[in-house]
């Protein structure tokens, strides 16, 4: 089986007084890869990204990440990604990576995602330019996710969609209904269901719950640290038999 550790919303910065490094100790005994579901920093500065690198420097398994809205706040997401990349944390945004792990080949397609809401109560690209831009941003990101997932076909034993925003309202239960459109979009789920994935991971919804599913049946897990209440959660994906 392929063992995946995941967490989102670690929100590190210079004032960090939690010892995340301690929480990550021994992770290699439980998982072969660590996936980070965005909001790695508090305000998206390169200095905060250095704290992320410092806290995770002793993690001995590959680390793959997407950025979250906090990582964009300072307007320098590329610089944040560069710092993380230089520190050995591979950041995905509309791309996919294939990892040869001890018990199988894992494909990870990653995007930040965005909002817009869910089927039956979703925003449409209509009216003011600002509204169109909001929805079109989600369309573009979802399209990139679908392309990245599709690129993994026939190359992997298992595929994971790594996100910050949620593809389903299931994992938002506990959040106020009024803010669902800012927490995720059905377009992300549609991309996953079209291209196929064995698991979708996201963060962002601190008051949500862990378990959900896309309309097409892909398991979705909210791994925001305030939700899981620990350094990471582990998922074992059964490798397909060739």
């Amino acid at each position, binding site marked *: *089986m392929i*063992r995946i550790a995941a967490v989102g*919303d*670690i*929100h*590190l*910065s210079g*004032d*960090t*007084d*939690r*010892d*995340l490094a*301690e*929480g990550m*100790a*021994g992770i290699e005994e*439980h998982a072969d890869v660590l996936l980070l579901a965005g909001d790695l920093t*508090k*305000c998206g500065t390169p200095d905060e990204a250095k704290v992320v690198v410092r806290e995770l420097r002793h993690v001995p398994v590959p680390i793959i990440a997407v950025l979250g*809205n*906090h990582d964009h706040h300072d307007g320098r997401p590329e610089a944040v990604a560069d710092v993380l990349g230089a520190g050995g944390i591979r950041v995905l945004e509309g791309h996919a990576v294939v990892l040869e792990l001890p018990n199988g080949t894992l494909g990870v397609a990653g995007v930040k995602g965005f909002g817009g809401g869910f089927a039956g109560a979703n925003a449409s690209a209509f009216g003011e330019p600002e509204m169109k831009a909001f929805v079109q941003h989600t369309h573009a990101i979802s399209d990139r996710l679908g392309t990245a997932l599709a690129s993994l076909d026939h190359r992997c034993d298992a595929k994971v969609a790594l996100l910050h925003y949620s593809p389903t309202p299931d994992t938002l239960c506990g*959040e106020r209904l009024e*803010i669902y459109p800012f927490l995720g979009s059905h377009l992300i789920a549609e991309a996953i269901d079209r291209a196929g994935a*064995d*698991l979708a991971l996201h963060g962002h919804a*601190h*008051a949500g719950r862990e378990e959900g599913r896309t309309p097409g049946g892909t*398991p979705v*897990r909210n791994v925001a*640290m*305030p939700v*899981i*209440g*620990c*350094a*990471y*959660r*582990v*998922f*074992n*994906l*059964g490798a397909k038999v060739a």
Partner: protein
Amino acid sequence: MDEHPLPLEHVLAHVRDTLATDGRVGELGLEVVTESDVVVVRGAVSTHARQDAVVALTTEVLRTYGCAHAVRDETHVTSATVPHQEPEEL
């Protein structure tokens, strides 16, 4: 002409906004409500330093709008401990 005092509901919205955007706290999604004339802040914060800033920042915004309410911090710091739950088989 005296300006009308801003209804408390608007002030609480400004408090919530400030808790999200001011780097001293920087936490989106905190709940800000009043209970018996006390402004209460609830939700998860990532560090003790950010938790320590919640009352001061909330009070600062309230005073800006002429509100003298007391503030009670009911936030909690997110745990980053080693997980104890078994892996989920999928």
